[in-house]
């Protein structure tokens, strides 16, 4: 079904436009997507470092998240837009892969983590600053979330090499 959708999408006019201008359009969109990765990973990294106590200790956790979380959110919007454009530009190459869908699953997981963290911080600001931020389990969660981002980036690159998943990749069956 996904394959049929991808094939249909590739016949639509926005897709044909991108396919016909792929010499500059695709590298440009991908470059903006990578700049988005840098904004999101760099900003999220600063929040994790603060939770781990490795940087930004002159700032409260609240100050750190107010400074960096909007950049994570806006960076993600930028990646959503450029990501959708890449799918429109090369529907079959993107959608008919195992890597893409595992990546989307991890993006959903990490987004839920981030939203839950910001809600909790807003509600229990004091408790976060005084005790929660020093808790081992919270620090472990920060490291885990960072590793999920790393996994997302690797899977993004693996879309181009989906055959390495062997029988799990729908691309190899095509």
């Amino acid at each position: 079904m996904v394959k049929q959708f991808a094939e249909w999408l590739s016949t639509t006019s926005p897709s044909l436009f991108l396919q016909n201008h792929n010499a500059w359009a695709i590298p440009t969109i991908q470059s903006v997507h990578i700049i988005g990765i840098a904004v999101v990973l760099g900003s999220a990294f600063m929040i994790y470092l603060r939770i781990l106590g490795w940087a930004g200790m002159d700032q409260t956790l609240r100050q750190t998240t107010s400074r960096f979380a909007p950049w994570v959110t806006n960076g993600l919007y930028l990646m959503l837009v450029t990501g959708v454009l890449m799918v429109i530009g090369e529907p079959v190459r993107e959608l008919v892969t195992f890597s893409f869908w595992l990546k989307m699953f991890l993006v959903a997981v990490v987004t839920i983590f981030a939203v839950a963290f910001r809600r909790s911080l807003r509600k229990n600001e004091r408790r976060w600053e005084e005790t929660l931020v020093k808790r081992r389990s919270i620090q472990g969660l920060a490291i885990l979330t960072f590793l999920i981002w790393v996994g997302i980036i690797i899977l993004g690159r693996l879309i181009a090499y989906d055959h390495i998943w062997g029988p799990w990749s729908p691309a190899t069956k095509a």
Partner: protein
Amino acid sequence: MLIDVDPLLKSLEATALATKIRDSVFLFPMLESTHVIGLALVFGTISIIDLRLLGLASTQRSFQRMASDILKWTWAAFVLTALTGLLMFTTNASVYYHNLYFRIKMLLLALTGLNMLCFELTAGRTIRNWDQSPSAPRAGKAVAALSLAMWIGVICMGRLIGFTTTRAAAAPPPPAGVSFDDFLQGSPPPGPPPKRE
């Protein structure tokens, strides 16, 4: 050219390490991914510093404090990025070496180093005077703006390298590189059709 580097590049490609990476299904993609993670941290953390210099973000924090907090991570990420980049280069050295975008990228990287030196010689000397100010003096702002522009350029050139080189050892290097006119007109670059990676 005074020195013929091609034999050197060929011997780099022939090393056991380069061969191992070429022969592996997943080593090259893993190097690329690690390169992206590294460059994301380099550009991500550097732009935090640049925006502080420009007075656009973190204006309440001491510059000195931020720099000592953040730049060590930038350097660590830079080492990771350079190392993975070097390993990728060895797999197809003569093609990368002759690639126009690769050359522009290396030039831009050299310029970011020079830019950093400019900072040390100008605004870097008077940090004590503006450490708590919301932005750096004019020279510091110029360095920051240039840094942002050049790093964005480095990223764009890096992505274009992937579109204009191929790992196939048989591919002859495009002798004159790819001209910007070809790029702007959207016509395919000379030489073999690029393999998408």
